[in-house]
């Protein structure tokens, strides 16, 4: 992954020659040893820019301006590269060298393989959104804004009105496990049918050189939007109950179930019936400001932080004006209730360079450089009580059952951290 | 955004020659015009019968544009809003520009439409005219069609054509006795239609109010060296140090003053031309080199010889503009042409003398002339409905 397009162009020629015709001839010993022998092992630490390597390359003929005999001279004084040049010349070797270093394997970013970046979050900074958050995970940063708009039931093509009785049934019926589950499923089905949640993810903000504006949203952006939409509908994060806007005629306001009102209620049933007049539609827009790997986790964090911050104004149906009106008093606005907190954790599997056959490293929360080197990707989303909400995996078969168990544990651990951060704010 | 569709084909030496001759005092323009004079043009109004107003304008260099204006009645206010603003809304006027071979989201097309729209709504007169009552308003669609490939920067052409079309626009008159919130009904008698920009003669015969309200016009002004030029040709644009589009309208209060509605700098195309050095020519004094940087405020100041903070670019351009426009817009050029239009529409042939002193050639034909009943207009139609002036 190169920072600057210019540099990438500059090196592409050399890299292709290295790969095709001239294997890197390093000093004898294992790759890591060789590299440590050549570089300064002291600086093999968490500061990425300071890592030093010396790479000995058998010079291809095209690099010589003189005759072939000079090659011996060159071999005695090999050129050295700063770390970032090495990373551009031979990315897999660079990463392998880091991961096979003495003691604990460490990634170029200074993290351990399963260590994830701790996100930071700043909520409520946007004026025009009902809820918002600016998040940053390492060098990946994004803004999420949640805005509520009103969908009137007249505008829904085939709307099946849900009566207050049905609503009350939930209260009266026994809260058996199956019933709750069925209710939840029906809720999210209704939410999906009406399209009450509208998440969109935008990468075309110049957040990385590969995502420039102009033209339709990229495949990556489309995929991520759809993944977030699915996550919203399958994770019980929100309930359609909180998005309904009711019309409760004044007469029915004190719904008493006392015996003396029984007769009255039956008589007035036609008039006093409370009904749903409109819904809140949540437009959730996530814009990336900077992208350095793992957009899905960052987007989810931004989404959760923004939803935690969302306060919808108090809304009611005004029968005289035939309008849904809102109160502008902030004290009357209601915090959006989140029923669960689905937390994702994405991993990549790195298989090492040519010499590291059969090895694999599972890297949590990859940055952009690592993403370019990993074919196999895993995303695990966990919810409350260690429930696994979703597992996505593609690109290979290196992760076995035991690994998976470990990864779920890691995701659970991360969820604990996130929930603390989202509920209580940053430490 | 490159103001011209094609990059300049002039060689560095030609550019250098042009630049030098335009920087002289007095300057020499390639077509021997004075810095303030416009090129001859041919105009025609009311040519599209299915529009509320239309105009065609043709510059001598062959560029030609047609503008059609259509009005539609629309309900004011959106969801939850039943009452509209008394002053009207900017978006009630919609300007679209259609150019040969350009997509409708092309930067140039968007820029032109925006610039013309900006000028039209800036003074609030047009918007206010579109209000019918509290619940209804007119929506004005102004469709601009550039028929020729854009040789010169087409902004003045389009603006003048729009101006003409708006002058000829009439909207049906509402039926009398309309209440404040009623659904509007209109008189189907086209003769009773109310002009969008009524001339003074429409309501009162006093001449003083003639310039009371007219659509604004946008002019292109370039500077080369210390000189300012109006209505630049393609070659002159290619060597311009700075290009400014200025939208002006006469102020409603007095006939002498011009009100400035919008000013914007346009990227001069000279920045994109290649310098002499790149073409392999010797770099010497006077060789063509595109100007880096921008309008230097000190250059302007040097010319006026004024103090430090007084006289920025705007003053300089407008200082020139004011004097020049008074001439052009006031009595000689554009104004006389406008008077001609008025005259043809409303029978004011008293301005005939003004026309004669015009330095520019105009030819205006109007089909509506024939429908008019006044004696004066019969005179016009007897002479063939077309004039060609000095």
């Amino acid at each position, binding site marked *: 992954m190169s920072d600057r*397009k210019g540099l990438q162009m500059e090196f592409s020629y050399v890299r292709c020659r290295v790969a095709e015709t001239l294997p890197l001839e390093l000093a004898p010993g294992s790759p890591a040893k060789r590299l440590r022998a050549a570089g300064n092992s002291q600086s093999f630490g968490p500061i990425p820019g300071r890592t030093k390597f010396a790479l000995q390359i058998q010079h291809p003929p095209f690099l010589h301006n003189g005759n072939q005999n000079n090659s011996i001279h060159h071999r005695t004084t090999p050129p050295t590269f700063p770390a970032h040049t090495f990373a551009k010349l031979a990315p897999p070797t660079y990463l392998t060298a880091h991961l096979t270093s003495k003691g604990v394997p460490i990634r170029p970013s200074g993290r351990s393989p399963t260590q994830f970046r701790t996100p930071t979050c700043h909520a409520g900074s946007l004026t025009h959104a009902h809820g918002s958050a600016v998040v940053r995970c390492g060098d990946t940063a994004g803004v999420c804004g949640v805005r509520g708009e009103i969908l009137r039931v007249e505008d829904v093509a085939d709307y099946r009105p849900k009566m207050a009785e049905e609503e009350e049934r939930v209260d009266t019926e026994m809260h058996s496990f199956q019933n709750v589950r069925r209710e939840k499923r029906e809720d999210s089905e209704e939410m999906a049918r009406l399209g009450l949640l509208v998440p969109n993810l935008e990468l075309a903000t110049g957040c990385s050189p590969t995502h420039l504006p102009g033209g339709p949203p990229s495949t990556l952006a489309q995929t991520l939007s759809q993944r977030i939409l699915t996550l919203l509908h399958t994770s019980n994060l929100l309930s359609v109950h909180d998005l309904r806007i009711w019309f409760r005629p004044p007469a029915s306001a004190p719904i008493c179930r006392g015996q003396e009102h029984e007769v009255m209620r039956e008589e007035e049933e036609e008039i006093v019936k409370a009904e749903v007049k409109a819904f809140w539609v949540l437009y959730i827009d996530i814009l990336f400001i900077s992208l350095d790997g793992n957009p899905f986790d960052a987007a989810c964090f931004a989404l959760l932080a923004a939803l935690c911050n969302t306060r919808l*104004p108090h809304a009611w149906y005004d029968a005289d004006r035939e309008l849904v009106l809102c109160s502008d008093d902030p004290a009357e606005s209601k915090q959006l209730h989140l029923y669960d907190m689905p937390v994702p954790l994405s991993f990549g599997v790195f298989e090492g360079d040519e010499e590291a056959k059969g090895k694999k490293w599972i890297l949590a929360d990859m940055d952009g450089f690592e993403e370019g080197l990993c074919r196999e990707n895993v995303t695990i989303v966990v919810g409350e009580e260690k429930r696994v909400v979703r597992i996505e995996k593609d690109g290979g078969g290196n992760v076995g059952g035991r690994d998976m168990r470990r990864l779920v544990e890691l995701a659970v651990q991360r969820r604990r951290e996130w929930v603390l951060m989202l509920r209580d704010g940053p430490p | 955004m490159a103001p011209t569709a094609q990059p300049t084909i002039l060689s560095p030496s030609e550019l250098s020659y042009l630049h030098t001759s335009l920087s002289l005092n007095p300057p020499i323009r390639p077509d021997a015009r004075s810095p303030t004079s416009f090129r001859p043009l041919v105009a025609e109004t009311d040519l599209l019968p299915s529009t509320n107003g239309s105009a065609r304008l043709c510059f001598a260099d062959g560029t030609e544009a047609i503008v059609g204006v259509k009005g539609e009645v629309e309900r004011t206010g959106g969801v939850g809003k039943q009452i509209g603003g008394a002053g009207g809304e900017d978006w009630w006027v919609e300007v679209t520009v259609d150019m040969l071979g350009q997509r409708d989201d092309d930067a140039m097309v968007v820029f032109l439409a*925006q610039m013309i729209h900006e000028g039209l709504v800036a003074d609030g007169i047009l918007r*206010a005219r579109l209000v019918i009552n509290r619940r209804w308003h007119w929506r004005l669609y102004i469709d601009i069609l550039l028929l020729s490939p854009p040789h010169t920067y087409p902004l003045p052409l389009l603006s003048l054509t729009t101006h003409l079309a708006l002058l000829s626009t009439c909207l049906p008159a509402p039926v009398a006795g309309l209440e404040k919130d009623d659904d509007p009904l209109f008189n189907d008698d086209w003769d009773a239609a109310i002009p969008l920009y009524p001339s003074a003669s429409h309501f009162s015969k006093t001449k003083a109010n003639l310039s009371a309200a007219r659509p604004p016009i946008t002019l292109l002004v370039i500077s080369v060296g210390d000189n300012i030029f109006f209505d630049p040709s393609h070659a002159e644009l290619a060597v311009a140090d700075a290009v400014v589009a200025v939208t002006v309208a006469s102020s409603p209060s007095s006939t002498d003053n011009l009100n400035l509605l919008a000013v914007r700098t346009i990227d001069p195309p000279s920045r994109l031309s290649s310098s002499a050095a790149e073409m392999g020519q010797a770099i010497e004094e006077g060789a063509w080199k595109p100007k880096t940087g921008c309008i230097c405020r000190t250059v302007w100041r040097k010319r006026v010889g004024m103090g430090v903070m007084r006289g920025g670019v705007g003053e300089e351009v407008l200082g020139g503009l004011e004097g020049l426009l008074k001439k052009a817009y006031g009595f000689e050029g554009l104004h006389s042409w406008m008077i001609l239009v008025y005259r043809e529409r409303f029978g004011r042939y008293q301005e005939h003398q003004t026309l004669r002193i015009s330095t520019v050639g105009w030819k205006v034909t109007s089909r509506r002339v024939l429908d008019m009943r006044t004696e004066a207009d019969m005179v016009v139609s007897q002479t063939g409905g077309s004039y060609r002036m000095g």
Partner: protein
Amino acid sequence: MDRRRVNGPPGGTAPPCYASTLSGKTHPSPKRTRGANEIRKIFLKTGLTPSASGSAYFELETPPTNYSNSLTNRTSALKLTCTVHGPRPLPRSAPFSPQLLLSTRVKFAPFAARQRRSYIPDSGERDLAAHLETALRGVLIGERWPKSGVDIIVTVLEGEEDRPWDALAAGNQNGRTGGWGMMSILSGCITVASAAITDAGIDCVDVVIGGVAAIVRQPAAPPQLVLDPCPSDHEEVIAACVVGYLQSRDEVTETWAKGNVTASSDGKGTTPMGFNALVDQAVEAAVAARRVLVEAIRESTEAKIQSSQAKLPDKLTSV
């Protein structure tokens, strides 16, 4: 309908309609508390997007909101991010260009304004981009990068509103003209793009800074010339002007003025409320903003020098 995005309900939705705006119970609209020649505080930081060649973030201070506690009365503050990608080689298919090709884009986030904005670019955004390009083209020394292009992308996270919410809904905008918020946004775009270009290390003749001035009128008060206007603070904006100004060369790359001003002096000098005074005041605003820009550039340059010094020994080691 854009099938490549998640769309809302097909029936369409409406933004919340507040009861207070219908009943005509209006809150006191915000008032300008700054002096007439005082600009809002600017926060400017470069290097926000490490993967871009250059980037910057711009924010104006949020005015204090102590006048009333209402959801309709929250005033917004301009927030912009800018990324610069390049200069990089043009694609092989592109025709030869002796100069650096500049492409500018301005995009509003969907939550940037009171009404939700679409992802599809509208003409206002394109117009802003054209203005920005004019402002920047005069500054870049383009002939140093033949056959290359640079992309400058500004994202408006939060824009400025033209008028208070009450006025919008109740329809008492007596002859107000719209689009004044765009002027402040353009000024911010120029400044933030300038910072990002400097961060990317592209050669310029000077830093270009945006400045806005406006002639405003309060009810029962004479017109007043103010720097850095916040349109919703004022009853009526008569005219406004944005400049892109180069202080060290005393040049103006971009002028954008709108409104109704008397054209100019009558040969005797500047009229107090004339166009020239407006331009001069906009330049004043730009000069005031320049200090913030220079400070931000100095900070980022110092940080870069430090990190490059730390890296320097790498290149000298050899086996």
